């Protein structure tokens, strides 16, 4: 795959990277390198100036409350507009948990005014009383992702309840766990090439088909449609099978 390269932007790694979400950036990077595609990862921190031209793929993880307000502020400024511009020009985004909530329209706390989000996903999140903590198994038919799907296995840990508007499609259907809100059996949201979900785990190492879908989306921004060479995913499959068995036995 001569001449191709991949540019990943890790959004707020200092504030929005707990629960091991960094593993997603590791997985994306390695799966590109194993195919001889050079990778550069840049961090965007609150207060930096985001360059909407540069990144092919943005990763936005979960954080503590302390991080989320600083990040929310940064996204309400010019950097939010720049990120939207990047999305409009074909960049792919994976967001998890707090990052997912901040890409929606708003987060409505229990007894405080709503905190506005970026609005890149047609979802809104309201604070809930119950915390969903446990293994999360999801079935994706692939319709929202423009192709074949599969199952996704991860671990959720959130009390926010997320509801989808008409422009966003669910990433998948919950088999085990709470998912978006514990009510409608949906998990995650997809809108164009923007994905949000509650799957920690880390998500992508054990779900390599989704990692490759994101890589394809990211590479086509500057390199056109790309057929990714297959990799030996035996270790990934074994990890996914074991985690799935655990999720079914001990949700």
């Amino acid at each position, binding site marked *: 795959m001569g001449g191709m390269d991949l540019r990943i932007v890790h959004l707020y790694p200092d*504030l929005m990277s707990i629960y091991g979400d*960094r593993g997603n950036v590791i997985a994306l990077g390695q799966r590109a390198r194993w195919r001889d595609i050079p990778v550069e990862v840049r961090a965007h921190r609150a207060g930096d100036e985001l360059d909407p031209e540069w990144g092919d793929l943005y990763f936005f993880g979960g954080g503590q409350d302390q991080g989320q307000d600083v990040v929310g502020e940064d996204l309400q400024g010019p950097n939010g507009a720049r990120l939207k511009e990047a999305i409009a020009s074909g960049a792919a985004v994976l967001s998890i948990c707090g990052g997912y909530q901040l890409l929606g329209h708003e987060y409505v706390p229990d007894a405080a005014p709503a905190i506005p989000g970026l609005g890149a996903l047609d979802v809104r999140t309201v604070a809930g009383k119950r915390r969903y903590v446990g*293994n999360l198994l999801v079935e994706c038919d692939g319709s929202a992702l423009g192709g074949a799907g599969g199952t996704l296995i991860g*671990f959720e*840990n959130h009390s926010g309840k997320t509801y989808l508007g008409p422009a966003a499609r669910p990433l998948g259907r919950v088999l085990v766990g709470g998912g978006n809100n514990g009510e409608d059996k949906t998990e995650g949201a997809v809108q164009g090439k923007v994905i949000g979900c509650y799957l920690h*785990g880390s998500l992508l190492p054990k779900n390599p088909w989704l990692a490759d879908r994101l890589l394809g989306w990211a590479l086509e921004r500057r390199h056109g449609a790309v057929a990714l060479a297959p990799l030996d995913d035996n*270790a990934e499959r*074994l990890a996914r099978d074991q985690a799935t068995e*655990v999720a079914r036995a001990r949700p």
Partner: protein
Amino acid sequence: MIRTALAVSAGKLARLALTTSGRGATALPGLVALAVDPSALRSLTAGLEHGAICVSGTNGKTTTSRMLSDIVRAAGWSPVHNRSGSNLDRGLVAALLADSTWTGAPRGNVGILEVDEATLPGVLGRLAPRVVVVTNLFRDQLDRYFELDALAKRIATAIATLPGDTTLVLNADDPIVASLADGHRGTVTYFGVDDPSVGGTVPQSISDATRCPRCRKPLVYRRVVLAHVGDWSCSSCGFARPARDLAASVVTLDAGGIELRIAGAGAAIDPVAVPIPGLYNAYNALAALLAARVLGIGLTTSIRALSGFRPAFGRLELVEAEGRTLRLMLVKNPAGFNAAIGALLETGRRPRLCAALNDRDADSRDVSWIWDADFESLAPRVEDAVITGLRSRDLALRLKYAGVDERRLEVVDGWTAALQRVIARTPVGEEIVVVATYTAMLALREALADLGHVGRFWED
């Protein structure tokens, strides 16, 4: 009082039943006593002549409280200590029960209570400790404790309710720990590492505090020791690493142990030598030394006690097995893992690993944390690895993505089978490093005992 006596009797009966049936009695008797008398903790510590010392924090609390226990014993005191590391409410009460008479009077004269950091706020409210030691606060088992900021706030709130005669012993190098003193009415003392050669200047990816705990503006570091621990100050409000009451001016590390020169101790005082390796154990020793000083115990007594220190369950314990040496390292969170790996790489060897990942409640049900741990530093040095545990495949995958050659890895199901395999793969005379989460380490210890290689840990 009748209720306490009843609780003590009920708990003791449970203990008797368990120990005579050959089982460890580290928690259940406490659970029984607490069910009968919820204030058992206060009544069981009220009679201690030298008071109760709570030792808490994410990492190092077991080692620090064991060090302190050795020190007070060297001073001629008689500690009541929850030594087996069962440090939730029920473990504390169980330990106190084991060391009390049938009427609930303590047999020792000082309580050294290792307290789980999530339990600490509740425990502080139910006993009036003389000293509270906090070693560090890192992210740990987020599915159980949720977020570190919220936990730190709960601890600080509980500390603010303590009476003025409680003394705090805090890690000056950890900004989250240092901020716990903000509402405290009594004396606050700090320990830290002042040796400028310890640590680097680049913040590590697992930092939990990149913002000031007081004003939330970015923190700046002159030196980073581990994660967010180091020489820190706020870029805005002036909050900074507090002055140290006890500091190591020179830290010397080697495979056999650590040596600390205490700032201001004078040339007549020998350095503190502790026969266990790892920079994080230097912090544990400093915490124990400062707590001892607060209790009025002299440095020479402490130095004598620490020179013969033996590590706790899974904390760098050594076990001989068929001519190989197994070094047991308990890991439970990214900071602890990185510290363990740091200690391992300090030796300059290429480690042969037996690595075990479980996802029970006591391990962290969410195994995501392995992706925050710095396997990338370890990967190029791994000679050989046998992987096991309930989530062995996640761990094998982590090593694959960190760049370990898959031919050096073997996943083996079953504790005994994994141990036998790693022993077979290791030449006689070589060391095997056993890295495991809590319940995996328990299972491996049991399997080693079945193979005849080690005593059970509660016989300690």
